[in-house]
């Protein structure tokens, strides 16, 4: 073969078609992102278009709306606080300590997260109206029913297991060697927790708190079955969506939906900013 003929041999004959094929998969993947994004944006934009800015201004000016928004915000905050009280120690235990029957225990703790909240609300109603909880509440003078205590209770029950799982993830991200070093240098367990573990897990705990708050603020199915579909003191925002939809009042309903969307997006944005997903080092 002459040297000139060598130049004409195609070394990678399939290069052109392979380049086209190489773009196909990434394009499809990004296309899927665009599709899902389009779906969600259309969902929210369509509703805004349905309501119209004029109507939106009218409904945002009603006192009823802001009473309900405030109720949602403060009940979710209180139930998040209570969830933290249980969730942080429990998360630490799940992360660091060896529990008896670990498979069964973790499954039991995960269960309330996956069971539909409607079923949880129904079962909670059963718990609260039976021995011994009912008698204990009567003795203590506590009343959980058509009032904000009932709301906080339902939100707490639905979010506490979720909070525990998130805290476990947060503590899992802290290398136990740091704690072991601290203990070996003479610090007691409480001091180690206070000065080593918690500061390292701080971002994760803060981010998880916001997520738990957002979940509590969106809880209404359990509330509906627990309280029984009554309008009154328990009208948190998601529940009011159902109640006013029941009255065919689409203006307030879409407004409540838009505010819920805004709250959800704001919470997740805050989580992103806090950076809870990043590892410690």
């Amino acid at each position, binding site marked *: 073969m002459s040297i000139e003929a060598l130049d004409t041999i195609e070394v990678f004959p399939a290069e052109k078609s392979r380049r086209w094929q190489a773009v196909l998969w990434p394009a499809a993947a990004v296309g899927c992102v665009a599709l899902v994004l389009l779906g969600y944006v259309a969902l929210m934009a369509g509703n805004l278009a349905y309501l119209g800015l004029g109507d939106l201004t009218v409904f945002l000016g009603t006192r009823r709306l802001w009473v309900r928004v405030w109720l949602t915000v403060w009940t979710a905050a209180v139930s998040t606080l209570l969830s933290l009280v249980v969730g942080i120690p429990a998360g630490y235990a799940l992360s660091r300590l060896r529990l008896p029957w670990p498979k069964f225990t973790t499954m039991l703790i995960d269960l309330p997260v996956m069971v539909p909240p409607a079923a949880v609300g129904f079962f909670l109603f059963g718990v609260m109206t039976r021995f011994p909880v009912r008698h204990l509440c009567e003795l203590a003078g506590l*009343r959980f029913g058509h009032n904000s205590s009932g709301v906080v209770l339902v939100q707490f029950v639905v979010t506490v297991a979720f909070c525990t799982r998130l805290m476990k993830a947060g503590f899992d991200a802290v290398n136990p060697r740091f704690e072991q070093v601290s203990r070996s240098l003479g610090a007691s367990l409480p001091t180690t927790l206070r000065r080593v573990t918690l500061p390292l897990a701080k971002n994760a705990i803060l981010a998880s708190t916001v997520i738990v708050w957002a979940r509590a603020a969106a809880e209404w199915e359990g509330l509906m079955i627990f309280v029984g579909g*009554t*309008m009154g003191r328990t009208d948190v925002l998601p529940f009011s969506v159902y109640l006013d939809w029941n*009255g065919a*009042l689409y203006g*307030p309903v879409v407004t409540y939906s838009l505010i819920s969307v805004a709250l959800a997006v704001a919470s997740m944005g805050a989580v992103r900013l806090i950076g809870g997903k990043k590892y410690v080092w």
Partner: protein
Amino acid sequence: MNARILLGTALIPFLAAVLLACPGCGDGEKEMLFHAGVGQRSSLLDVQKVFEERHPEARINFSFKGSGYFIADAARSKEGDLYFPGEEFYVLQAYERGYVQKYDPQKDVVAYFMVVIATPKGNPAGITKVEDLARPGVRVGLANPKAAAIGIWCEKTCKRAGIWEEVQKNQVQSAKCIAELLTGVQHGVVDATFLWSSTAVLALNDIQIVPIEPQYRGFVKLPLGVTTFSKHPELARKLKDFILSDEGKAIFRSHAYFSEPGPLDAHGFCTDGGRASEKDVRYLIAAAAAVKDHSLPVSEETVGPLVGEVTRQRMTTRAGAFEVPVARPEADGEDE
């Protein structure tokens, strides 16, 4: 320092318990639970406003649901002070089981519903009379009579017109309460449905009202009862008296309830060819037109007691404007 930490960690549950306990303690307020059908929602919210103004210690919580669920709710929770389903049938049922106190069929009737046909805006299927619902291809929304009072009347009206089998073939929706029927019509999911006049009036921007011919026109008695397991019986009776008073009935009229249906037969259908209710039907149609067309005049002569409702609905494109003047007979046009 360790003691401080312990104190700090103990403080949180204590605070939480305090927070929980405070709202749970008795407030000195008398809270009443009012079981009402979904169709009565708009007028009852107005009633609540006026009543709570006059009796500051009273607080009314509403449980709006389909009328068929009242019995189960009463049996399960034994809670509730007033009982206001959308049809006399349910009150009689409750009285038989001893849930409701003695009910006087003459005096305890608050108002009457009128059954109308509702279609989406623009009436895409061209419904002008009851028989049109039997046309093949028309999507009809019906309610479950076990769940909502309107369900009973869907069946009754269709059976009287002799079209029940065909309408059942056209049925695409089985609603649990009347608001679901209204939703279906508002968004054009169904082509026609039956509604109470007072429910149809809630969304005049999105639907069109077609009155039923007088021989099939039904009027539904709305009785009000106090329950036997009421925790605040005197206050409940006061509320009942207020609703049955002239002022209360005027509130209901302003939401398109009928107070003079004229002579009815045993099943509740019109027997005088619609003469007694003709004026109110005219007001209803005029109101429906006036909300969509802002150039039409709105006054006592054109829309009768529905002035407040029409003014309110003109404020927004979508249903549901609140904080609006309550249309009282002597205080028309007064702003809040």
